[in-house]
C-alpha cells in the first residue's frame, strides 16, 4: 500500500480534471474580473436591478447552452438550437392560441416538439452517420422554414393564455423574498442546469455521454448500443431547447417566427468559454453557466458604458479570446 500516497494525490487531481473544476474556477475568475471592472467603470452597473437584468438576459442563451453542452460532450455539435427554440415557441403558440388548449398542454407540446426534433437530429447522426455539423445545420434550416410556415410568418401572441407570461416574467422567489425579485426565467435556467448536471454525473445516460465523446468505438466494442444512447442524448438536448422556447415565448409573450438565427453560435461560444472541449469527452454544466454569464455581463456592461455598437463587437471578440486563453494557460499549468 505504499502506492497509496501518490495514487490518492493523483486521483484527487484527476477528479478535479474530469469535473473540470479548475476550468470552472478560472472561468469564474474572468467573470469576477469583468464584474469588478464594469462596477468601477460605471456606478449604474452594480445594482440589484441590473444584476437581475443580466441574469434574465442569460436565461435563454443559458438554457440553449446547457442543451448544446450535452451534444458537444458526445463529440458532436448542435447548430439548430436557435431555430429549434423558435420552432418550439411557435408550436406552443399554435397549441395555446390557435387551438386554445390549456397551458399545460402547450408546455408539454413545446417540450415534446423539441424532443422530437432532437430525436431526428440524433437519428441522422447516429443511424445515418451524417456528421453532426451537417445534420444540425439541415435541421436549423428546416426548422427555420417550418416556423415561418406554421406561423404564417406572423408572430403568435399569447394574450388569451392568462399566466403564460408568468412562466419567465413572474417571480416565485420574489413572492417569498420580496427583496430579490428573481424572475422565474432565471429560476428555470438554474433548475434545468441542475437537472442536466445531475443527469451528466449521476446517470447512465450521462456516463455514456462522456464515454461516446471520449472514444465511441471503444464503447461500441464493449457491446453498448451506442446509436440508441446517442439518439437519447440528442432528444434530451432537444427537450431542453423546448424549455428554452417556452422561456423566450413567455418573455416576449409571443412566438416570433423570425427569431433564433445566430443564437446557436452564442450558445456554443458559452459552452466552449465554459471549458467544454469541442472534441468531446469532457465538459461541465457549471462551466457552461459561467460561460453564458460572461457573455451576458459583457454585452450588458458594454451597453451600460454606452460603448458604440461597432466597438462592442470588437471588445466582445477580444475578451472571449482572452478569457479562453487564460483558461488554456491555467490548464497547461495544472496538467
Amino acid at each position, binding site marked *: 500500500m505504499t502506492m497509496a500516497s501518490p495514487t490518492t494525490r493523483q486521483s484527487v487531481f484527476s477528479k478535479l480534471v474530469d469535473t473540470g473544476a479548475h476550468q470552472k474556477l478560472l472561468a469564474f475568475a474572468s467573470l469576477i474580473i469583468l464584474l469588478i471592472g464594469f462596477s468601477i467603470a*460605471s456606478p*449604474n*452597473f452594480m*445594482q440589484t*436591478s*441590473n444584476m437581475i*437584468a443580466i441574469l*434574465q*438576459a442569460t436565461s*435563454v442563451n443559458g438554457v440553449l447552452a446547457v442543451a448544446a453542452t450535452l451534444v458537444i460532450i458526445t463529440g458532436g455539435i448542435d447548430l439548430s438550437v436557435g431555430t429549434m427554440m423558435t420552432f418550439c415557441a411557435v408550436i406552443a403558440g399554435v397549441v395555446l392560441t390557435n387551438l386554445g388548449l390549456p397551458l399545460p398542454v402547450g408546455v408539454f407540446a413545446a417540450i415534446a416538439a423539441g424532443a422530437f426534433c432532437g430525436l431526428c437530429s440524433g437519428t441522422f447522426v447516429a443511424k445515418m452517420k451524417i456528421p453532426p455539423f451537417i445534420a444540425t445545420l439541415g435541421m436549423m434550416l428546416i426548422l427555420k422554414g417550418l416556423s*415561418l410556415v406554421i406561423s404564417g*410568418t*406572423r*408572430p403568435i*401572441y399569447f*394574450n388569451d393564455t392568462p399566466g403564460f407570461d408568468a412562466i419567465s*416574467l413572474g417571480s416565485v422567489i420574489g413572492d417569498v423574498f420580496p427583496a430579490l425579485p428573481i424572475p422565474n426565467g432565471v429560476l428555470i435556467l438554474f433548475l434545468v442546469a441542475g437537472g442536466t448536471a445531475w443527469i451528466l454525473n449521476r446517470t447512465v445516460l450521462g456516463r455514456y455521454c462522456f464515454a461516446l465523446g471520449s472514444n465511441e468505438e471503444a464503447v461500441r466494442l464493449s457491446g453498448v448500443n451506442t446509436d440508441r444512447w446517442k439518439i437519447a442524448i440528442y432528444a434530451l438536448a432537444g427537450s431542453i431547447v423546448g424549455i428554452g422556447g417556452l422561456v*423566450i415565448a413567455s*418573455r*416576449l*409573450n*409571443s412566438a*416570433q*417566427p*423570425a*427569431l433564433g*438565427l445566430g443564437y446557436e453560435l452564442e450558445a456554443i461560444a458559452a459552452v466552449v468559454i465554459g471549458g467544454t472541449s469541442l472534441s468531446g469527452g469532457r465538459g461541465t454544466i457549471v462551466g457552461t453557466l459561467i460561460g453564458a454569464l460572461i457573455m451576458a455581463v459583457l*454585452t*450588458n456592461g458594454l*451597453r*451600460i*458604458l*454606452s460603448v458604440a*455598437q*461597432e466597438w462592442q463587437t470588437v471588445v466582445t471578440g477580444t475578451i472571449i479570446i482572452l478569457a479562453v486563453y487564460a483558461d488554456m494557460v491555467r490548464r497547461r499549468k495544472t496538467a
Partner: protein
Amino acid sequence: AADKPYVPLISKGFSHQFWQAVKIGAENAGEEFNVEITFEGPDNEGQVDRQIDMLAAALAKKPAAIGFAAVDSQASIPMLRKIDEAGIPVIAFDSGVASKIPVTTTTTDNIAAAALAADKMAEAIGGAGKVAVISHDQTSRTGIDRVDGFVNRIAEKYPDINVVSVQYGGGDHLISTEITKSILTANPDLKGIFGANEGSAIGVVNGVKEAGADIVIIGFDSGAAQKEAVRSGLMAGAITQNPVGIGYETVKAAVMTMNGETVPPVIDTGFYYYDASNMDDPEIAAVLYD
C-alpha cells in the same frame, strides 16, 4: 398560371412584419389585376449580393416586370442594367434607386416620418430631457434614415432634448428588450425612447415593462402587439407607413407600365402618426396591419 403575367418583388427583407405587409399589399393587387406575384428578400437588410442573386433568378424567369427595393441602389446598378437591356420594366419600392432605370418609385419618406416621431416625442416629454433611440439596423437605408430623421430633427428644433444613446437591436425583439433595459439602467432619468421599427418598438415596450420604468415610448410600424401597446397607452403613439399600400401600388404601377400607361415618377404612399385617440379612424385603421 403560366399565361398570367409574372411580377416578382425583390425586397430588402422578408420576415419582418413591415415586409410581410408589403407582401400582402402586393398579393392583393395580384388578385385584383390577375398577375402572378412572388415576394422574396434576404434574411437581413445587409445582404446586397444575395439580393442581386435573387434579381438574377427573377430575370431568368422572364417576368413582365420586376418590383425592387434596393438594399444598396448603387451596388445593384449593373444587374439593373441587365434587366433594362432585357426590356423588363423595374418598379422601385420602399426606398428609391439612384438611377434612371426604374419607371417609378413607390416610396415613403423615412426621414420625414422619423422627424414626425421626433416632434411627437418632444411634445410628449414637454420639450426637454434625455431620450434614446433603438433602431433595427445600423447600415440599411431605412435604419439610417429613421435614426437620422429623428436625431437631426431633435438637434434642429429641440435644444433642450438630448439624445443620449442610439443602439441597434437588429429588429430582434429579445435583443431590443435587453438594450432597452441597459439604457434605462445607464440613464435612470431617461424621458423617452423611440423604437425605429416593429421589432425595436416591441423590444422597448417589453424592456420598459420589465424594468417597471415610466417613460414615453414612440414606436414605428404597426403589428398586433404595437397596436395593443398604443391602445393600452403603454406606447404614446407610433408612426406607421403604408406598407400594404406600397406593395399594392408597386404591382399596380407594374401593370400600368405593362399596359403602356404612363405612371408618375414617384408614388408617395405617405406615413401617419397614430395613438389611442385616432387609431380607429377609418383612414388610419386602413393602413394599420397585424
